[in-house]
């Protein structure tokens, strides 16, 4: 089918064009940037080779980069397992039959649409801070204006005499729960698709043999959905790395567009990228074992 193969190239032509010009070349160039001093002149840009200076700068001179990378990695390590457990749990619930399933699914998957709109919430809370610190508003007005709906419960806790650091922790924890729910939309959908593709006859056969629901969960559902849980996990890891709220990339963004030190910014993103690849490698290693046991 040599003729067929030729048509294949025709179909993937846009993809090849994009991969070469908008992925491979920019990647290589960004690698070159990370070893150079980049300056923009009118009409073009020029690079001067610096060796490993940008990497040295990012890791040992820049005061915030290391700290931010650690925080970002910590966030990913804490959030992703919770996201996956939550997504798996919700997906198995949504896969069972009950009244109002359509509504629940619609709401639970809504974060897919709203995830990046979190920028709105950030902006709103910033406004709130500037209001509370800057102006001479009365407490009642502050309560009424900004905190009425978002923090009334916490304010009542404060009034009830709970120490403020406990209240702080509670609000931080609830913030994280919201973040987790927000980022579990796509993983949930992927896992749900996996659960739905498990043939119902397997469960029927298991029930005939006298297996409890608990047993059939561990012997059928869990092993059979493993590969999709892997996909969902990798997706969640990547999603948390490229989130708009990610500290490390805010720093990269800052160095790119405000400081305009393109070389340093490129070096920072490459260091961070190596960590991402390592983490995804670890995820694959963990799952390879799990999937092997499942068979």
């Amino acid at each position: 089918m040599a003729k067929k193969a030729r048509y294949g190239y025709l179909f993937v032509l846009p993809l090849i064009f994009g991969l070469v010009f908008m992925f491979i070349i920019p990647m290589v160039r960004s690698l070159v940037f990370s070893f150079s001093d980049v300056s923009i002149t009118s009409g073009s840009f020029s690079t001067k080779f610096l060796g490993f200076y940008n990497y040295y700068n990012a890791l040992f001179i820049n005061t915030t980069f290391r700290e931010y990378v650690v925080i970002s990695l910590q966030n990913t390590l804490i959030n992703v397992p919770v996201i996956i457990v939550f997504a798996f749990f919700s997906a198995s619930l949504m896969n069972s039959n009950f009244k109002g399933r359509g509504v629940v699914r619609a709401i639970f998957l809504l974060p897919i649409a709203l995830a990046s709109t979190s920028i709105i919430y950030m902006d709103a809370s910033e406004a709130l801070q500037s209001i509370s610190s800057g102006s001479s508003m009365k407490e009642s007005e502050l309560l009424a204006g900004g905190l009425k709906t978002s923090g009334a419960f916490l304010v009542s806790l404060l009034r009830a005499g709970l120490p403020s650091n406990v209240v702080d922790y509670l609000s931080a924890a609830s913030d994280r729960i919201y973040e987790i729910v927000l980022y579990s939309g796509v993983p949930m959908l992927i896992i749900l698709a996996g659960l739905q593709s498990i043939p119902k006859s397997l469960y029927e056969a298991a029930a005939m043999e006298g297996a409890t629901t608990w047993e059939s969960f561990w012997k059928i559902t869990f092993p059979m959905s493993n590969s999709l849980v892997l996909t969902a996990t990798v997706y969640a890891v990547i999603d948390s790395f490229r989130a708009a709220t990610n500290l490390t990339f805010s720093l990269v963004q800052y160095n790119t567009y405000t400081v305009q030190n393109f070389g340093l910014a490129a070096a920072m993103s490459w260091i961070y990228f190596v960590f991402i690849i390592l983490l995804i490698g670890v995820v694959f290693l963990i799952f390879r074992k799990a999937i092997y046991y499942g068979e």
Partner: protein
Amino acid sequence: MKAQGPGLKRRMPAFIWKTFRLLFFIEISYLILYPFLSKLSTSLMSRTDILDLTVQWIPKRPTLENYRMVTVLLDYWEYLYSTVFVTLITTLIQLAACVLAAYGLARFKFKGRGLLFFLVIFTLVVPPQTYAISTYMEFRFFDLFGLGSLLGLEPVSLVGSPWPVYIMSMGCMGIKNGMLIFILRQFFRNLPNEIEEAAFIDGAGIFRTFFHVMLPNALNAIATVFVFSFVWNWNNYEDASLYMNNVKLMTTQMANLTMVLSSGMGGATVVDPTELTLAMSATGVLVMLPLIIFFIVAQRFFVEGIERTGLTGM
């Protein structure tokens, strides 16, 4: 036969389980809907309502004044139109390129196919921020990827127009493109060979088969991918702020909302914080609503019958 799905329940009384499930659904639904509902509630309040501590969720004197003010201040309808326009064009371009690429990867055997698919997955793993700088340079001094200088044309700047995003979508390098190709490829791969062969035997060429036989069969998967692509492009703040700062897009406008609103309301020093809160709430609703409506309408394409959309079989 017991009518029960593969749930997580162990042996426990059914009503406890049901109550627990119900509570879980209510709790999480509340969490997801809370930002929207609270904004909706505040946005309908009048100034007296918001200062009245007895008013919690339901405004006593509901008003649409906040919406009237914000739609004028933010030029809402124009922004909505232009956001929908740019997002729709980007999505359609991205979809066309992805469907072609996925079909090619799934249904043809050619040299380098494995490498190509590996690269598609690899694009997913690499954060676009890593190479965003050099892509930006490419479009800042755009010369048709080197072709322009061969023809002796001066490089032009495409920054400030939607063209960089359109071109990236054409080349399957739009937002989270690897995911879309991945879903579609899985789907095309799982279609039975007989469909294609029957079309060939009937004398249909490669393209006729693709357009008249394969595409209609793939509508479910294409709809799923369309929803993803539209929603992601709508929310694509990174590219919007990088390339389209002067295009009227909601995402970029959101980023400096406080500034736009307060300068429209008489300057940051004079503006009344309470009024600002009301205006922000109304804006939040106006921005989220189109997306929520679109998603609720569109999600039934893939929520029922997900197993046929190509997410499975990996």
